[in-house]
């Protein structure tokens, strides 16, 4: 593992800060399935594999909290087999709760779940910064954590889908198509994220910037948490 050198925040961290914060503010309301898509689902009865796959992919690609967590997960994963392991654990977790959540119509407060998803971003950033190694004898297993947080991400996805009036006709196939779409969207986003990290890791001061960037990631997670918790508290 990389030992952070004893120097302070790097300037690229500030650029990342601005990008992440601006995106978080600007898209605060974008985290649900947009109006046109809602109209489609409400008027749809029966099997519609491709449209639901597209909705799933779109939801993942525009779900910046899911993407931030993914970025945190692969931040220090250099070997493709590790990326595959962790992403599969995440995918398994969110697929399980997405499917069970929608089929069993599990009632969850969307804002509360989104706050937990934001917490997962904070957690992952902390872990990346070495906080757990430094603080104690007991460290949570990284893989277990990714899987457990995956369960919560899936609950968030299920809550979004449940907000729409899914017609019982063809529900299972549409749901599975949606899930497949989520995975495809995840793959697409992951490709870009991994490419980004691969290039970045060649920079001589990557270790330095990594610490600062994870701090920024944590800040973004905190901001999202504050937004979701406030919305939850105000009864939105």
């Amino acid at each position: 593992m990389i030992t952070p050198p004893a120097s302070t925040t790097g300037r690229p961290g500030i650029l990342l800060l601005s990008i992440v914060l601006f995106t978080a503010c600007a898209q605060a309301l974008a985290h649900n399935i947009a109006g046109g898509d809602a109209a489609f689902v409400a008027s749809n009865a029966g099997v519609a594999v491709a449209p639901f796959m597209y909705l799933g992919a779109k939801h993942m690609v525009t779900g910046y909290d899911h993407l931030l967590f993914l970025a945190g997960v692969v931040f220090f994963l250099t070997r493709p087999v590790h990326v595959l392991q962790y992403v599969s654990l995440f995918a398994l977790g969110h697929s399980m709760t997405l499917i069970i959540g929608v089929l069993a119509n599990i009632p969850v407060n969307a804002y509360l779940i989104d706050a937990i998803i934001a917490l997962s971003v904070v957690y992952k950033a902390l872990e990346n910064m070495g906080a757990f190694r430094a603080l104690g004898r007991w460290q949570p297993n990284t893989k277990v954590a990714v899987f457990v947080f995956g369960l919560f991400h899936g609950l968030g996805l299920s809550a979004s889908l449940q907000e729409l009036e899914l017609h019982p006709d063809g529900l299972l196939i549409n749901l599975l198509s949606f899930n497949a779409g989520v995975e495809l969207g995840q793959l697409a986003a992951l490709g870009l994220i991994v490419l980004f990290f691969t290039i970045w890791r060649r920079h001589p001061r990557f270790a330095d910037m990594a610490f600062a960037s994870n701090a920024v990631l944590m800040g973004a997670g905190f901001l999202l948490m504050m937004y979701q918790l406030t919305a939850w508290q105000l009864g939105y």
Partner: protein
Amino acid sequence: MSSTHTDFEQDMKFRRRLAVAISTAFGGALLVFLAVVMPAEFDRDPLGIGSLLGLKGMMNSTAGALNQQYEVHKSDEVEFILEPFQSLEYKYMMDLGNTLVFSWQADGELYYDLHAENFTVPDGEASFAQGSAAQQMGAYEALFNGMHGWFWENRTFETVTLRLKASGFFVSARIYGPRGTTDREPSPVF
């Protein structure tokens, strides 16, 4: 790794660095949240910065509720008699965004087609509702400049009397009947 520091001191330096990073991240997030996100999304301004930046009340704009109209408000009432298997069309000249509230009633069932012809796009027609009924009502908004209205056809063996009442923002009306087209100028409300 410096050899002049003990492992313990290295550890403490790292922990302090960690603590600074976490507090900065949290503090930064809190600041942005209170100054920017709260005024913009929740219409609350604990620090007063939101009002300064003009963010407070962003979400309260009522632009969506009021649909500004650029035409005089007119009211129209017209009656037609349709012999068996006779049809006619009645349309209003409306510009994009003009709205109309209408209801029509007949003493027998009529086939109807609410549709519009586009002035700017040749052969640009759009049909919005078709069916068979003795009455229909609704609120209509023109999606383009053109002639907007109905085709009615009496597909029964009885003569049907049809009455249409409409109020809204249109330029004029036109009857497309068996004897040709006739223009009408329904009068403004005021």
